[in-house]
Every structure is written in C-alpha cells, then in structure tokens.
C-alpha cells in the first residue's frame, strides 16, 4: 500500500524508461524530500530488510546519484552535499580498519544509526498510510446531521447591598450642598500685592530696614495671615533685589533680613 503510493509519487517526475534504467539516477531532486528520502528509496531498491541493508552499497549509490545530478548541472541543495560528504566519510570508516587512537563513534555505530533512521522513516510512512486507511469521520462514519444545539439561557439577577442603598440616598440628599472647590483667599497676601506695596515703599528705605516692618496692615496679628504676608514680602524682596532696586542682608541664620534701597 505504502509501496504503491510511493512509487506513484516518483512516477510523476520520472519517465518510466529512465526509472527502469537506474532508479538511483533520478535527477529531479525536487521529487525527493531530502537526502534521507533518496537513501530510503535507494535502500528499498536493494530489496532487503532495511535493518540488513548494506550501508556501504547505499553510500556508493547515493554518491553516484549526487555525482550524476551534478553532471546534469542540477543545483544540489546543501543538505544533499552534506549527506554526500558524510557518507563518503562513513564509507572510509567502514572500509578502513578502525584506528584505536581515533575519537568518536565507529563506522559501525554510524551505519547502525543511519539504518535506524531509514527504518524509522519507512515505519512512519507505513503507519501514516495505516492511519489514513482508517475509517474517517465524514467519509466512513458520520456525526449527527441535525444537531440540536444547547441553548444557553442566561438569567440575570440584580442585587444591591444596604450600603449601596444608603449611599445612594445620601448622594441624593446631599447633591444640593455641592460647592465647587475654590481656594479661600481671605488670609492670603499674594506676592503681586507685596511687590506692588514694596515698590511704593522702598523709595524711603535709605537705611537698612527689617523686611518684617513691610508687612501690610491687618496681616500682623493672625498667625496664618502673618505667614502668608511674610512669605510674599520676602519673595517680593528677592524679586526687587534681582531687579537691582534694593540690597538684602542677613547677619546670621534666622536673624532678621534687612533691606536697603540701592542707588
């Protein structure tokens, strides 16, 4: 069965006369699925059990095949040439008496593995055919023609917790109290205000003066207001110093900062 299929595969690419002449000399290497496929075909022409195939003879045939293909100026894929080189090497190993100093596997081991590979490939082909020869679904046996599909009934239940309920209620009842957030500016003395104020005052600062005396009215009693005014007055002083309008000095860390008009 496999045999038949296999021969058929070849027949497509090889004229019968040529095949009869030398099955090994099939030049259309595209008809083969790689060197192992060629070797398997060559091996089968020896008409023996693959386990007893003569690897020597096989190597000879393969090398002849590659040689012939090359003469016909067929471009051989690299793996065909690699196989050829390896088989030539194997052949030499098989023919020459083993060199005890040489490392690596013996010729026999290599030959045995090649035989194993060929036998395994052959076996897989036979079993592939056995598999395909089985009764197949949709060809020999059949599934239900009118499947009654399972209908999926989706039932949705809704739920809520007491917390959801109370939060929902709270949300509604407090909706009117919503006030967009805005900064409370009552206790803020901005740097712009401080700058404006100081510009009008520094003209009188001929001598060193503590900048804390520049805090505006109404910002000297409440702590929050003092903080805000101090910060903005200090920042405004720096700005004025940068502009070259005043000089600043501080005798010590945390000592009062003093300013003086720069002329």
């Amino acid at each position, binding site marked *: 069965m496999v045999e038949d299929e296999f021969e058929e595969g070849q027949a497509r690419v090889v004229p019968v006369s040529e095949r009869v002449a030398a099955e090994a000399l099939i030049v259309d290497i595209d008809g083969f699925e790689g060197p192992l496929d060629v070797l398997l075909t060559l091996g089968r022409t020896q008409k023996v059990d693959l386990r007893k195939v003569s690897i020597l003879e096989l190597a000879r045939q393969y090398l002849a095949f590659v040689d012939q293909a090359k003469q016909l100026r067929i471009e051989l894929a690299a793996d065909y040439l690699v196989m050829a080189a390896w088989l030539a090497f194997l052949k030499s190993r098989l023919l020459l008496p083993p060199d005890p100093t040489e490392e690596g596997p013996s010729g026999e081991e290599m030959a045995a593995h090649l035989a194993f590979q060929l036998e395994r490939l052959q076996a897989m082909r036979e079993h592939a055919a056995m598999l395909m020869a089985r009764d197949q679904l949709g060809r020999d046996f059949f599934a239900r*023609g*009118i499947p009654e599909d399972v209908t999926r009934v989706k039932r949705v239940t809704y739920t*809520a*917790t007491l917390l959801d*309920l*109370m939060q*929902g209620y709270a949300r*509604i009842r*407090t909706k009117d*109290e919503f006030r967009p957030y805005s900064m409370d500016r009552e206790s803020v003395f901005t740097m712009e205000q401080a700058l404006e104020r100081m510009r009008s005052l520094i003209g009188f600062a001929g001598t060193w003066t503590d900048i804390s005396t520049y805090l505006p009215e109404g910002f000297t009693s409440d702590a929050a207001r003092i903080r805000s005014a101090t910060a903005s007055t200090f920042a405004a002083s720096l700005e004025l110093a940068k502009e070259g309008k005043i000089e600043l000095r501080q005798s010590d860390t945390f000592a009062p900062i003093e300013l003086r008009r720069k002329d």
Partner: protein
Amino acid sequence: MSEDTEKEEESLFAAPPIAEQERMCEAILFATAQPVTLKEMEARMPHGCDAAEALAHLRKRYEGRGVRVVKVGDAWAMRTAPDLGFLMQKETVETRKLSRAAIETLAIISYHQPVTRAEIEEIRGVSVSRGTVDQLLEMEWIRFGRRKMTPGRPVTFVVTQTFLDHFGLESARDLPGLKELRAAGLLENRPPPGSMPQAGDGEADEGDEAEAEDQSELFEE
C-alpha cells in the same frame, strides 16, 4: 423508467434482512441534515428494501427512549424526547449590581414610602424611567401602595417584605437617618442648608436639564 430495469436487474439479489434495513434507516436518519422521506430513504438503501417497514420497527425500538423517531411533514427525523428538553438548555445565572438609577429610586422609596413617582422625581432631580420602576417591581422589592388623596390620585410605591428580607431590616423605619449616615461617614458634607423637600409638594416640571440627565440614566442601565 430506468428504475424499473434496475429493479429487475437487482431483484436477483435478495434484500437485506429487516434488522439490517432498520440499522440503515437508523444511520440515515441520524446523519442526514434534513428530515428524510421514505422515497429518499429507499433510494439510498439497497434495492428491495422496505423503508416503511424498517421505519416501523425503528419507531417501536425508540419508544420511551431518550430519542424518538418523528414525522415532519411527509418526512422522518429523529429528535430528542420532549420531556428531556431541559437537558438541552444550559442556564447561567449572572448576578449584576443594580444600576445607580435603580438604587437611588429604591432608596427614595424606602426612606419616603409611600411615595409617588412625581415625588421620587422631585427628590432625585431627574425623571424616573419606566424601566427602573418595572425592574424594582419585578424584583419584588417594591409594590404599589394605596393611592394618594391628592389631585389625580397618583399611585404610590412602598417597599416589600422581600426588600426587607434582602437588606436584613425589620422595617423600613430601621433605615438609618441622614444624621446617622453622616456619623457613619457616609455623608461628607455639611447638613443641607434648608429643610428637606417635602414629599407631596407637587410635580415640579422637569426642565431641559433633567431631560439631559435622564439620558444618562438610560445609559447607566
């Protein structure tokens, strides 16, 4: 017809035994995508078969089983027994959170019952969609209360025992008041400036704003 000549030719061979014909009918009915007429069946079976008789046997065999041989028009088919229809359904229960609109509506009903639809709308500030109320009615969390003695005698809504059971309440009066909600941290803000809007103040007419909000309510669902 050629059928006749064929018949004569083939009648040399005996028809398969009836048990075998029954098997054939069974396989054909099972695998064919449509109901099959007797004629079609016989056309497919070996010559000399009596599909009607084979079918009668098959029908009997399937009596009381999980599958039946049924007549569909003038054709035959196999169908699962009707009493096993439940096996052909796979019910999945999905639990979803109530929409915000539904929760708010429910909250208002529970805190203000008995309450009319107009009152709910006034408190929520948006109109209440029919679907929301229907859903709550269907869940049996609310029901109709008695009509209000106001013009138009509007129906009211009250919560049900099912509602109380679900939320683990003895009565709707057990629901925490605003003050307690605030104490529990459920309200972030200051107490409302004015008094609470009175239930039964009449139907405030919904402006464009409310309508727009109504849209969002629909999407929420």
